């Protein structure tokens, strides 16, 4: 008789933590976790100890103290009597303004350059290649400095616009390009509705009303188009809509503008500088152009990749159905290409936002220059200011990611 031996009792020996594949990965994870925690604890403890040896504490009360310095570009009310917290807000808004402007321009540039790089026209395609390769391969900071230098070194000083024989002239009497920035006409309302106080800042009711009317017009136009489509589907005849749609979008804002007494305030030479109009400072323009054109080159490549990823057969099929090239691009290629373009576009937007922190190079007063620059320096709160700044950039980046991911989900392939 053969006895069937009992199944060996599982014994656990410590060496199995390393040699047994069942436990090994667990061991490694625990070890890494310990290393990580030890590292973090060491850093934190180090910071605490060093702060103590220096006799410094860790607190954020400096945000409530008087800032004492002036900021040139202010989207909200601020002067040297305001607090450091307020200066932070001014810097943050400047960062956001620059990021939004740059993302928008970079997308336009990128899409145009990306499409043109695929153009059948040899010269145009080569020019775009040159653009993409030069801008992609030279660091952003250098482009920022180059654009800054072009603005300050080669544009006329305000004084050049003065006198009987001025050496510089305003464009159409409306726009002045100087070595201190570009002055453009400012929209004004003679019968303004005033401002809405949001606590932190004021918002112009005129602009809010305008936006509301515009959105309403666009919605009406969309209704009209949908109706036209229904009629077309039912009867085969598409009613003429273009003038109705145009009217719905253009007329109400125009009427509102008239009612509000809209007019333009032109920049004028007064004293040392131009006054009136909107002053786009050199620092803003240099940052805006540099970031947009630099990042545009990356976006162009994303766009090109996206378009090339849509198979040639799609185009041929569209042509076979009798669609014209423009329609093919808009209705067949781009909607599919978008799905490939958007995920890398998110990282480009994040790059732009983070690169805005190079602004100090040309003296643009962004978050890094206010909170992380002057405030940090005047109050000596390095750790607090740096942590706060990192936190703010993190939140901005996460919000951008979130928004873009939502959009991506909307245009993404709907699997049914």
């Amino acid at each position, binding site marked *: 008789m053969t006895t069937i031996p009992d199944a060996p009792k599982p014994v656990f020996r410590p060496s199995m933590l390393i040699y047994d594949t069942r436990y090994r990965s667990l061991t490694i994870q625990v070890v890494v976790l*310990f290393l990580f925690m030890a590292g973090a604890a060491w850093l934190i403890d180090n910071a605490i100890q060093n702060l103590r040896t220096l006799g410094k504490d860790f607190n954020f009360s400096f945000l409530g103290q008087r800032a*004492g310095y002036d900021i040139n570009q202010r989207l909200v009310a601020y002067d040297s009597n305001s607090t450091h917290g307020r200066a932070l807000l001014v810097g943050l808004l400047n960062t956001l303004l620059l990021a939004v402007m740059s993302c928008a321009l970079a997308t336009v540039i990128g899409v145009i350059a990306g499409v043109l790089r695929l153009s059948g026209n040899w010269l145009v395609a080569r020019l775009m290649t040159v653009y993409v390769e030069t801008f992609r391969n030279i660091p952003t900071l250098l482009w920022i400095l180059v654009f800054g230098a072009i603005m300050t070194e080669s544009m006329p000083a305000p004084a050049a616009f003065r006198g009987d024989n001025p050496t510089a002239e305003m464009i159409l009497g409306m726009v002045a390009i100087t070595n*201190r920035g570009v002055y453009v006409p400012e929209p004004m309302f003679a019968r303004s509705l005033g401002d809405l106080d949001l606590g932190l800042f004021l918002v112009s009711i005129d602009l809010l009303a305008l936006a509301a009317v515009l959105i309403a017009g666009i919605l009406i136009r969309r209704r009209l188009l949908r109706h036209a489509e229904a009629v077309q589907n039912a009867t085969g005849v598409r009613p003429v809509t273009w003038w109705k749609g145009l009217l719905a979008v253009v007329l109400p804002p125009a009427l509102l503008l008239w009612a509000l007494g809209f007019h333009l305030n032109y920049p004028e030479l007064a004293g040392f*500088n131009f006054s009136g109009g909107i002053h786009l400072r050199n620092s803003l323009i240099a940052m805006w152009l540099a970031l947009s054109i630099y990042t545009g080159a990356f976006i162009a490549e994303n766009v090109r990749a996206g378009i090339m990823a849509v198979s040639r057969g799609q185009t041929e099929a569209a042509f076979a159905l009798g669609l014209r090239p423009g329609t093919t691009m808009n209705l067949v290629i781009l909607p599919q290409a978008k799905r490939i373009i958007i995920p890398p576009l998110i990282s480009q937007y994040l790059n732009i936002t983070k690169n805005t922190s190079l602004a100090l190079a040309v003296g643009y007063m962004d978050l890094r220059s206010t909170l992380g620059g*002057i405030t940090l320096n005047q109050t*000596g709160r390095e750790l607090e200011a740096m942590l706060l700044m990192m936190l703010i950039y993190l939140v901005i980046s996460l919000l951008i990611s979130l928004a873009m991911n939502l959009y991506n989900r909307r245009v993404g392939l709907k699997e049914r």
Partner: protein
Amino acid sequence: MKTFTFFGALTAAGLAAGVVQAATLDDVRARGNLSCGISTGLAGFSAPDANGVWQGFDVAVCRAVAAAVLGDPMAVTFVPTTGQTRFTALSSGEIDLLARNTTWTFSRDVDLKFTFAGINYYDGQGFMVSRELGVSSARELDGATICIQTGTTTELNLADYFRANNMSYEPVPIETNAEAQQQYLAGACDVYTTDASGLASTRATFADPENHILLPEIISKEPLGPLVRHGDDEWADIVKWTLYALIAAEEYGITSQNIDELARGTDNPEINRLLGVEGGLGQMFRLENDWARRAISAGGNYGEIFSSTIGESTPIGLARGLNAQWTQGGLLYAMPFR
């Protein structure tokens, strides 16, 4: 269990490494050179010469301290700092000493936790404009575009001055003096404002200094001096008394010419104590007794340093003014060596 003990020990060791902080004097000796923070370049105060050797009025303080502590005025690692980076560099321990046109203020002393070792230049904030602007007083600057260095007392004074006089201005924030100079010369700002000494020094490097004027208004007090971290009194004493040694040397007529002769002994006990002939002062802060002699030999006494770097015979051409000895109607006053 082993793992726990191991990591426990590792953590403890790491923590301990972060805590122990030797005296700056020992650090400097162990390293064999002094790490000295200076500006990124301001002619006469700190700028590299044709051979790449840093020279200037602020640099001389670093060299004197290195000579006193290490016996070699050249044993200095210069760390160029901007208005914004200088304080972090000092409090993080990257530099042992900051000599960079830095104004002694309450908050820097008390809140930022620094110790000013004294004052090597009594200054005030001024304005520079180009002559063709036709401005003769700071009161006429309403609406002007003004270049300022960020992270300085300058930007705070400027804000206060314009506010007090009910004037507006457009600040152009700038990081270094070199950039400010470029922006100012390109006409991107009408006015450059900083310490008057800095203006004189910047103007001296222009191709056409005669076309630029300093306005008569001095809007602030800017006592400039070397500083160290709080918490190491011995090191602060060394820097402070090295500076006093340079100032006292001028007062007592000790120059780089006659110092070797005087160091053989004189009738004046104060000079003897200063030069280490008697009194054993150096030992009191763990230096050799001839520390001051070495510091003075490095670049001469205060007056010699002044006249060779920024004085009237140099292109910068600053008069002694407030920076004359107290015996000459100035504010320089070294405490007694006794």
